[in-house]
């Protein structure tokens, strides 16, 4: 009886501590969000010259010494970048770069957890960190499907049709869903498939061949496909 009572008291104490801790973290995040809100607002409305630095408030820069605060700001910037285009979107990217938040995203690529790696790839792509393309490119053939698909989409987002060069060396399957996703990303990109299309039609990876056929149809290059079929026959 006493043991049950003690267990019950322990459980209640644990729950109370957990709830208190959660409330404290929520209060802290709310405080940071207020600091970052004005920072983001200023960035959105900023009209400085190319080399100028975006204004960063003292309170925001003090908060940003904490990794959790930096992650919170990255999340806010990602939300903003998804919703805003034009100079506002470009300024959010500029703020991300100016505050060195790319290093935080980059650290995620080295994480053993697949979801952290996928998150890092998404952040770098959305924030147009082209200087990290080599790191992302290596993940386009990753054994984990989620990481692989995120990396492939990231490369295409950053480089359009040029980004499809990962198909040259892809040995893992390109799922039907991923093929549709890539075609959708490419439909928003100017240009046409590169001269590599013939090579992809002959790829040893059947899913790459399948995707290449879809690309030829999408870009009305059926003649190329017919030639390839004739040569194969």
């Amino acid at each position, binding site marked *: 009886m006493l043991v049950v009572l003690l267990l019950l008291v322990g459980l209640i104490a644990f729950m109370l501590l957990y709830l208190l801790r959660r409330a404290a973290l929520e209060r802290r995040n709310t405080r940071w969000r207020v600091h970052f*809100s004005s920072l983001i*607002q200023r960035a*959105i*409305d900023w009209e400085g010259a190319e080399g100028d630095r975006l204004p960063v408030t003292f309170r925001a820069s003090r908060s940003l010494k904490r990794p959790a605060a930096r992650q919170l700001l990255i999340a806010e910037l990602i939300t903003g970048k998804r919703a*805003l*285009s*034009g*100079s506002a*979107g470009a300024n959010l990217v500029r703020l991300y770069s100016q505050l060195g938040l790319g290093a935080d995203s980059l650290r995620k690529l080295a994480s053993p957890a697949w979801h952290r790696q996928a998150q890092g790839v998404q952040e770098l792509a959305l924030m147009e960190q082209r200087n990290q393309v080599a790191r992302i490119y290596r993940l386009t053939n990753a054994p984990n499907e989620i990481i692989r698909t995120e990396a492939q989409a990231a490369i295409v987002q950053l480089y359009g049709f040029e980004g499809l060069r990962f198909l040259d060396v892809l040995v893992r399957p390109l799922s039907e869903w991923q093929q549709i996703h890539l075609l959708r990303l490419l439909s928003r990109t100017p240009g046409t498939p590169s001269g590599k299309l013939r090579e992809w039609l002959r790829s040893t990876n059947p899913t790459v061949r399948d995707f290449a056929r879809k690309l030829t149809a999408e870009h009305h290059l059926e003649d190329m496909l017919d030639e390839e079929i004739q040569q194969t026959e």
Partner: protein
Amino acid sequence: MNILVADDEPMLVRAIEGRLRKEGYTVQSASDGQQVLEQIARQAPDLIITDIMMPYASGLEIIAAVRSLPGKKVPVIILSSMGQEDVVLEAFQLGADDYITKPFSPNELSVRVRRLLTA
């Protein structure tokens, strides 16, 4: 001029609020459809900017509710990441005055707001 901004993404609401306040508008905000309907019932704003996908009541339901109000016609701008033709058409059929697809430019939003309020 009183503008009601509704979106379930707080960061975006703050960004739009900030921009519109800077331009001299009074801005109210809501994070779900129910809040919008309650605010409209209390006092109709001069313009509504709303997302489509929101908890409790969608942007399309909001347009229908606004259009059923007696008195002056309140302009509604839909601000959504849903760019599918059928959704856009449904919004206009229900009475939306403008439709902006995310990602959007705040400068463009300002111009469209000004145009609707001076029309």
